[in-house]
Structure formats: structure tokens, C-alpha cells
């Protein structure tokens, strides 16, 4: 690894001030699992890293506000999020998705903010958070802004974040009676990067789907919503035909490419099958509250 310099600010504001919109050789480092990998392979050779580890502890906390919205500090390690009872109450799909996300050691140090800011389409929480309708609070030199997670991802390892902006917090709105699931599928070994991840969140009115949010990761260039699938589900009866239609819509809408994990044609079939299975799983969860 080529040498670089390291700054260790004690506040988020100081950290932001140390970043430079015009200098991509200066980068933040949080848990560091992804940055270290890129530096070790020589893909990324920074001049200076700004460690976020020393910033205010409130950015590592998980809480629920009066409205029932879940607030997750961007510096929260994934393992802490996984163990958080508040998160498990508010959106149990998060804990379930985390259980199979990378491994315990990575989850121990990788942070939610880093996970999202990395912009790697193969990660698990982006589709989950998109399906949950989550948003991110972003802090930059010019102030704060809020962005929907679905608008965060712009391309492979590219996000809407400017080089001098940091994610401060992620907010998952109260889910009410919505239920969600996440299905990920690996085509080589079990611990491989996924070939696809499908997150589905449904509002159910009896045997009918109210509204639907469906997001895909891994198979597409960026994690994204699949709006034709949402349309195929909204207002429809929870029946086999609906699930079939959702799967077909997903296979038709998702733009996929061939890679080491499978050909595009094969991945389209996987998307069809796993979208259907995800919807079925929600249906089979029964009507007992949020899952």
C-alpha cells in the first residue's frame, strides 16, 4: 500500500471542512473495509484520508422518534444495527438482511454511511432501504440536504455525494402495516457477492396489495426501484397470477449484464423467480403486523 496522510477530526463539521470538492485524493474513511480493499489493490491511492472514527458519538446511534421514524447514525456499525432492537421493531427486514451481509468481522466495523457512500451495486442494504422508502441526511461545506436513498446511486461506485459531502444519518420512515422482505441469491459459493438482491415492501389490505415498493440490487448497474413491478402489484389480489406478473415485470424491466456470476439471460430468469418468491414470502408471513 502506498503511504498517505491521515487526519482524525473530532467533529463532523471539522471532517467536512477537511474534505475538498476538487481533490479526489482526499477521502473519508469510516470502518474502512472497502477503502482498505481499494487501496490494497492499488485501485485507489489517496494522498490523505479523513478518519470519521473520532466524530461525535450521536452519529453512531440508532433511535426511533415520536413519529415512529427510525434514525440511524451514519457511523453506526452494521453489527450494531443488526443487534438494535429499535431497528428490529421498526423494520425487521433490516436485521434479516444483515445476517447474511458479508461476515461478522466486516459488520463489526463497516458503517451504514460507508456502506451507502461506497456506491457498490452488490451491497445488500441499498435495495432494502430503497424499498423501505428511506432517506439520507447529507452534510457538506455548503450545508445540509436530504436525499432519498433511491436517488443516491448514480453509477458503478458513483453516488450523488460531492467529494466534500458526508452522509450524517439515514431515516427509515415508520412502516405502519407494511411488510417487507429481502431475497439475495449467490450463484457461485454461498459467500459470493450476490447475483441479485430483491427487496419488496407491500402494504396489504386484506387479500389485496395496497401499494408496493420493489427495489433490486447486484444485478443492475445501480440499486434501483422497479416501478413496473410496483404497478403490477398495486391494487391486485394476492394470488399466484399477481406474483407471476410481478416476476415477469421485474425480468422485463431490470437492465442486466452478463458477468462472472451469470449471463444476462440467466439473471433475468433469476429475477423473475426471486421477485415472485419474495412476494410469496410476504404473503405467507400472514397478517400479524410488520415484518
Amino acid at each position, binding site marked *: *500500500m502506498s503511504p498517505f496522510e491521515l487526519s482524525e477530526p473530532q467533529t463532523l463539521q471539522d471532517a467536512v471542512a477537511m474534505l475538498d470538492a476538487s481533490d479526489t485524493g482526499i477521502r473519508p474513511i469510516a470502518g474502512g473495509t472497502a477503502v482498505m480493499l481499494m487501496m490494497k489493490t492499488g485501485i485507489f491511492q489517496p494522498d490523505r484520508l479523513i478518519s470519521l472514527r473520532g466524530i461525535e458519538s450521536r452519529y453512531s446511534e440508532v433511535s426511533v422518534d415520536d413519529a415512529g421514524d427510525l434514525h440511524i447514525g451514519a457511523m453506526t456499525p452494521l453489527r450494531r444495527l443488526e443487534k438494535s432492537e429499535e431497528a428490529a421493531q421498526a423494520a425487521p427486514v433490516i436485521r434479516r438482511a444483515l445476517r447474511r451481509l458479508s461476515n461478522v468481522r466486516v459488520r463489526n466495523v463497516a458503517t451504514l454511511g460507508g456502506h451507502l457512500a461506497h456506491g457498490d451495486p452488490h451491497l445488500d442494504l441499498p435495495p432494502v432501504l430503497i424499498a423501505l422508502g428511506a432517506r439520507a441526511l447529507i452534510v457538506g461545506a455548503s450545508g445540509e440536504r436530504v436525499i432519498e436513498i433511491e436517488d443516491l446511486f448514480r453509477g458503478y461506485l458513483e453516488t450523488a455525494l460531492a467529494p466534500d459531502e458526508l452522509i450524517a444519518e439515514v431515516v427509515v420512515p415508520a412502516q405502519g402495516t407494511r411488510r417487507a422482505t429481502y431475497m439475495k441469491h449467490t450463484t457461485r*459459493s454461498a*459467500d*459470493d457477492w450476490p447475483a441479485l438482491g430483491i427487496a419488496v415492501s407491500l402494504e396489504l389490505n386484506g387479500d389485496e396489495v395496497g401499494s408496493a415498493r420493489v427495489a433490486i440490487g447486484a444485478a443492475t448497474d445501480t440499486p434501483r426501484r422497479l416501478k413496473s413491478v410496483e404497478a403490477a402489484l398495486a391494487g391486485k389480489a394476492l394470488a399466484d397470477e399477481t406474483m407471476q406478473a410481478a416476476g415477469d415485470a421485474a425480468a422485463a424491466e431490470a437492465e442486466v449484464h452478463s458477468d462472472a456470476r451469470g*449471463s444476462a439471460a440467466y439473471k433475468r430468469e433469476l429475477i423473475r423467480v426471486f421477485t415472485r418468491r419474495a412476494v410469496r414470502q410476504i404473503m405467507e408471513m400472514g397478517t400479524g403486523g410488520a415484518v
Partner: protein
Amino acid sequence: MAGGSTTTVGHSYPRMEGRAKVTGRAEYIYNMRLPSMLHAKVHRSPISHGRILSIDTSEASAMPGVHHVITGEDVKKVLPEPYYGPAFHDQPILALDKVRHFGEPVAVVLATDPHIAETAAQRIVVDYEELPAVFDEVEALTSDVIVHEELKPAGTFADLKHLAGKRDTNIALDYHLQHGDADKAFADAEHVFEHTFRTQQTMHTPFEPMVALADVRNDHATVYSSTQGPSFVRFELARLLGWPESNVRIKTAHLGGGFGAKVYVKVEALAMALSLIAHRPVRVALTMEEQFYTITKHPSTFRIQSAVDKDGKVIGRKCEVWWNGGAYADIGPRVTQKSGFTAAGPYDIDNVAIDSYALYTNRPPAGALRGFGIPQLVWAYESHTDIIARELGIDPIAFRKQNILRNGRPQAVGTIVKDGEFEAVLDGVAERMNWNRPFDKGSGTKLRGRGVGLGFKASISPTTSSAIVSVNADGSCIVYCSTVDMGQGSDTAMAQIASEVLDIPIEKIRVVNPDTDVTPYDMSTLGSRSTFHMGHAVRLAAGDARDKLHAMAEEVGMPEGSNAPLPELFIRKFGMRAGAIVGSANYIPEFSPPNYDTGQSTNATPFWMIGATGAEVEVDTETGQLTILRLVNVCDIGTPINPIVVETQISGAAVMQLGFTLTENMVIENGQLTNPSLADYKIPGFFDMPDTMENGYIDAVQENGPFGAKGAGESGTFGVSPAIANAIDDAVGVRISEMPITAEAVFRALREKQGKPLEEN
């Protein structure tokens, strides 16, 4: 020597080095540092085939902290013929004139700080004229792309000499076997079958990457290396240097895995050359990525044909095997020949013709990997055998038993089989799988099937092992042998053998790490040969020491049966606690070389290794996804020296082969290896294990083996791949003929069968 009651041999002693390993204190060469050493970082070729036009080292050399930047031409100044290899002297220490594979070492930076060496290595600029490349073994046979202008056999193997100086061919070795009259059998046959099977390029991925530290000073070279074959490395480095072997010392420690990756010369010649140039100790420590450029397992193509009579008896078999050896031959020609003669499978077939070819291509070099080519062959002949049984409507196990090789019958190479329990091994699998009971074939989109595979291997022969056993005056004992313990438990096995022969408790026995200045010659730790060959050498050396102890006892007036403790014996003889009784032995089994034209030999191997696997699988027909419900591995390993270690060997071998079967694959696209890392080259983890796995060995005795034992390190790999393919066929009626068996391959085959083929992209 077989049978009888033993007190130490045959018991499940925990590994001698267990404590060192669980406390993190075990000695590995990767942990070693030498005073004033330099770190080496290799600059590697980014293309698969090309001419080197120029190498610009100026920017790298100018970096503070860089001591040397060394190219192939620099090496040539100190070693005029800087080529090495066990079969061909074809591999340059650093590329000269040409690069022949992606990742080939081209130049090296030496620096005191490894980070500086790494950064500087990236700043070396090499200009290439890229040449067309050949990657496929069958294409290489007729390709205009010639990997080596001239073939240079090492002279080590007599049967390669005819290739010396041959030009315009990629064939490094062709091997032929004729047994009976195959053409006539095919003319007489009721049924004829023909199939082609392929295997992919894979890699050993030992977790301790290859490493060598060399310290060359004056007329002596010391190389600390994670090698499986210190004696061979000494031989080869001495040859390169033009020095007597006594001036070259190779030391090893425990190896963090080997699996065949660390046999012959890997990074030792480079480390030695760098130290020779720099006049300082040099450490060459590869990364996991760099191992992928260093040695791999042969991809292969196998066209197999069978002639079967009306009763289901296989009367003839023709085998054509093409081995993709990559850019440098390494031990590939031996793979071609030694595996070649078992290519027709463990069956009693009167008429066999085998043609086996080792090919040069522009892939990273291929060598030995746990089975020496056998798993590639078994993949083909056991898939083929299964297809025949199914097409003839005969139960796959019954069909195998009808044709199986039995003791007293000649194998295709002409050697009469002795202590080869093929049928018992197959029965062992069938029994554990309850083969004769009804089997739940699943329903809906989850369909189940089961299959078996049976394979075998001859031991590499003739090879020599030497051992020294020294009994100390306090009654403790040291075993000196060059067998390398890379996790297979050989130190423990050798200690058990010495303990048994000398009646000294195993706790008082130490097995010395190989050091060619101290431990005597051994051919190498490979091919499951150590238990048999070194086991005999240690047994004989211990016996020699025991005889000397008996003589000494008699001399000092303590005849046999007096049962005097050893320390008292030494005190009586030497007047105090002093002296040592040293036994030594060489062991080489009997062997008859094969006839060059027919490949026939009356004694081709000292023992046969046999392994079978049964698999039960479930296929998700909507995705092609496979679940291995059950994997049963049964081997003939003779009588085990250490049962628990043998069981873990069988289990580990099967797990490794499971990876090669399902997930592991080195992918070359546009001349570049795209996945040289564990992130993209997927070895099995916890969740890739079969739901249940059973491993065992049959009751057997290898009559000519030490305490009835024979090798056990590879047999667990043999049957895994075809057992799974056969089970898939049983479950969903599709046949996969190319490894790895991916879910997509199964899904595509299913769609093909339904008449709805999936589009290419």
C-alpha cells in the same frame, strides 16, 4: 509386516504440532525475517503472449528506498542459463525476450520497506509487442501460435529425450498405451458410446502463500522455503549455480497448505538469483493473487469411447486426453503419463487404447494438484460409464460391478492388480447410501437424484525416501526425514512409526523440520507417497537403530528380555548420559519401466489408491441451483497409521474437490485472468458443505506397505465430481459435461431439454 497388534500405529493420536497451531506459535516460513534482508516485489506481465521490446526501470530505481530493480537480463549475467523446470528447462527466472502468460514475472524491485518495493514495482514500464495467444488445449495441438520456439527437456526423464530440440509444436509430451486390440473390440461391439468431457483451470490457493528467503554468500546458498520438495529444490538450485548440492541448503517449516502447489521450484530460484545479485538476504513472499500466476491445475479435454457387448460388458475403450499445461511444463508431462495409463477407469477391459498429450498454451503454468490429473480423468470416465449404464437400462452400481477391476487381473498398463479393493470401496458407498432402498426423488420444482463415482490412481514410481532415526542417551528420539508436514499429519505418522518400532513413547519423539543439511534425501512430499515411502524408510531406519540398541544391550551384558530402560543402557555403554544410536535407511519400491511403444509394464506401481463418492442432490428446477444433500466418501487406504488424521484427509480432499466441481474457475478474458482473488475465485465455505457428509475407509491391508498402510491424501477427491453430475442426471435427466457445474449450466441444460433454450445473453 501387515496386521498383528500394534501399540502406537493404528491409533488416533492428536497431531504433534496441534498446540503450536492453536496458540498461533507454529513455525511457518512466511513468518521468517532475516537480518538486513530486502523485500522483493515482482512486476508481472499484463498480457498473455508478447515480445518484450523494452523495460524502463528508471522511475522505479529513482524512488528513495529502492535498492535494486532487476530484470531477466540482469539474472542472465550471474546465471547464464537461467531456466528451470523438472521436466523441461523451459521457465526463465525472470522473463527473457518473451512473456508467455498473464502474470509472468518480468522484473523485480528490491527495497528494505515492502510498501516501497510494491509502489516502485508499479512504476516499472514495459513495452510489449503483443502476439496472438492460444488458451485451449485442443486448439494448441494444431495452432499456429507456438508457445516455445524450441523444446528443452530437462534430461531428468528418459522418455522425454526424443523431444530435445523439437520445434514448431506445442506438444510437450505424447503418451500412448495399447492393451489388447481396441479397434477389433469396437468392430465387434453391440453398442458404441462416445462422449467428450472438459475441466476448467483451478488453483490450489494454499493459505500460506508461496515464500522463499534466500541468503547467498560466498560459495554457499541457504534458502528458507515453503516447499513440499526440499531435496528437489536443492538439486535444481545447485544445477543453476553449477555448485555441488552440499553448497545449497534448503530449509522448510510447517506449510500452510500445499496441495501440490509447492512442489518443484516455485519462487526459490528467483529468491536465490536476487540474493546472488544483491549480496543480501532477499525475501520473495507472494500474495494470494500472485499464486494464481504461479501454478494451477490442468484444464483438460477428454474424448472417451466405449465398446460394449450385448451383455453389458465393456470390451473396449479408447481414450484421448489433452492436458492444458499452460506456458511452462512444470510437472505436466508426468501428469500426462502417470495419469494417462489409468484413463480407461477402474474396469477390467481387455482392449484399451490411450493417447494422452501435454500441451503448451498461454495460460499460467499447470502442475500437480491433489490427484495429479486423476480427478480430471475420473470426471470423464465415470460420467461416461454412468451414461452407458443408464442408456442400457442397467443399475449404475450393478453395471460398474459387472465390469470392475479385481485383484489378480491386469490393469490396462499390464500390471496385475494386488491389494486394490475396488469392489469393496464401491460397496462401501452403496451400503452407506442405502442404494438398494427406495429413494425420494422429490416433487414439484425440487427434484432429487443420486449418483456415484469411482476412481483410482497409481503411485508415482520409482521414487526414493531416506530417513535417519537417532536415539538419544536419555531414551528420547529424533526422526530426520525430508517429508514436509503441510497439514496432512506426516510428522505425527512418522513419529508413530518410530515409536512403534523402537517402543519409545510418542511424546519422547521429535520429527525435525526438513533441512537438506540435516535431513536426508526424499523425492518430494507429493502424490500421497509419504506414508508408504517415507513410512518404510522411517520404519527401516528405526529398525536399524533398534538392532543397534539390541547389540549394545548384549555388549553391556543386558541381553534381550532384561527390559532395562534405555538411559541405563547408554550409561553402561558410555559411562554417563552420552552418545547416540543412529539408524538409517533408504527405501525404493520395486518397479518395471513401461515399454515405450505399448506403455505396458509388469509392475507400474507399488500400490493403488482407490476412492469412491456417492452424492445425493436436490435441483431447484426454476434456477438450476444445486443442494448437496449428502456426500459419502469411501476409500481404500490400506490400514491407517492414524485413523482420525486419515478421516480428515479424506473429508478435506472431498471438500476441496467439491470446490473444483461447483464453484472454482480461473477465467481468462481478452488474454487477462479476471479473477485472481478469493473474492472472485470462490472456494468452499461453511454454507457450501453438503447437508450431511460421511467419510470412511474399508478394512484393508496393503501387504507391501508399512504396517499395511498406503497413501490417503488424494483418494477422497476422485469420485466427487462425476458422482454429482450423475446425481443431477438422475434427478432431472440432464447431463453436464463441463466443469464447473454451475447452476446456470444446469438451468440451461434443463431449458434445452424442455425445447426452450435460454438465449446466450
